[in-house]
Structures are given as C-alpha cells and as structure tokens.
C-alpha cells in the first residue's frame, strides 16, 4: 500500500476510535492530510477523495487481526 495513503487511513482510524473533543482533534488532523493531497490534485473532488479513503479504511479494518469486541444486542 502507498505509504501516504496508509498514513491517511491510520489518521482516520484514530478519529474513528475516539469520541467527542478527541475525535474532533483527530478529524482535523485527518482533514488536513486530505487538504495536502488536494493541493496537488486540483481537479479531484475533495468529497470523492474523502469517501474513497474512508472506504479504504474499512477494507483495512476488515483485514485486521485485532478488532474491537462485538457489541451484543440489547437484552
């Protein structure tokens, strides 16, 4: 995997795994990495790039051996 893409996926993972103010902080870091990519891709839609990276994050998540525990249905 491209190293820059991997770094962006891991930045999104941090945002996804956190809540509230911490999530805000990590989301900002993730968005700034996307901004950096957009600087050299002026013809690319930022929204498309963002959604593509988040889909790649899920593919990455499915491959992980260490997963968060399943949350059971409410009794």
């Amino acid at each position, binding site marked *: 995997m491209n190293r820059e893409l991997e770094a962006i996926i891991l930045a999104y993972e941090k945002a996804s795994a956190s809540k509230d103010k911490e999530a805000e902080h990590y989301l900002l870091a993730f968005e700034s990495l996307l901004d950096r990519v957009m600087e050299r891709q002026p013809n690319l839609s930022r929204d498309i790039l963002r959604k593509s*990276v988040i889909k790649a994050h899920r593919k990455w998540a499915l491959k992980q051996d260490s997963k968060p525990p399943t949350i059971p249905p409410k009794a």
Partner: protein
Amino acid sequence: MPSAQTLSVESTSRKRKPPQGRRDSVGFSLAKGLRKVFLDGMNAAISDSRVPDIQAQARDLTKRQIEQWFDWVDGVLEVHRSNFVFREPTPAQLAEHKTVLKLAIRYCLFINTLIADPEFNEPDLVSRLQVRVRQLQDAYDIFHDTTLSDTQAEEVLKRVFPK
C-alpha cells in the same frame, strides 16, 4: 420492529430518580398550600417579589438532555465501528444500520437548530454536535451512499496514490 436490534444502545447517564416526596410522574406539580413549583427536580419558592428563573432552568434541562443525546450517539458510533466496520454485517443488520443512522442524523439536525440559536450561546455544544454529525454521516455513507461505488473509490485511490 427489526429483530436484530444491533444498533440498540443505552445511555449510561440516564434515568435520574425524581426527588423524594414527589407525587407526580410527569415532572411537574403545583402544591398550592406551600406555594412552590416543582419542575423536573428543581424547585423555586414563589413570592410576590421573586419568580423562578424559568429560562435558566430550561437551558440547564436542555443541556442535560443534549449530553444524554451525545451519549446515545457515541453508543451508535461504537456499534457501527465494532459490528459494521470491522466485521461483515448481514443484510438485515445493514437495513437496520440505515434506519438508525438516518434517524440519528435527522435528530442531530433538529438539535442543531435549537442550540445554534445565538441566544442559546453554547458554541462548545454546537461544536461537539457537529463532530458527531460528521461521524454519523461518514458511517452512513460507507454503506448507503450510492454516489461512489467501491470500484470507483479504488480507481480514485490508485490514481492519486500510485504504488
């Protein structure tokens, strides 16, 4: 009613008990003899010269309810992450995922209308709500946004991030 209930979550900070001695179950009663108004746990003596600060009470109540809403949304996001992002859901679970995420986003937008009012003046709450709306929208889009297929996304990433 969906049977899987995969996205049913329960807030940990709910279910406050009413103060002892309360006779009503809906949070409002008027004891004429004591000339006191009870409003959801808060009481204020009424005299000719003093009225209860209803505006402050309403604000406090709204803030507490929004914190509870945040807890619920965080629970939804946790279920999304554990049961849908890191694992393959069933079609029935995905259908429920769509319903719950749509509802959560819609309610967040209602709440945003309330707390974004300049008179409410709680920018921190607005900011915390907007983070959650962003997270919920991302959670929805991964599975239910039809504007970008998985194949299209892969092509974009191959073009932008060559190996």
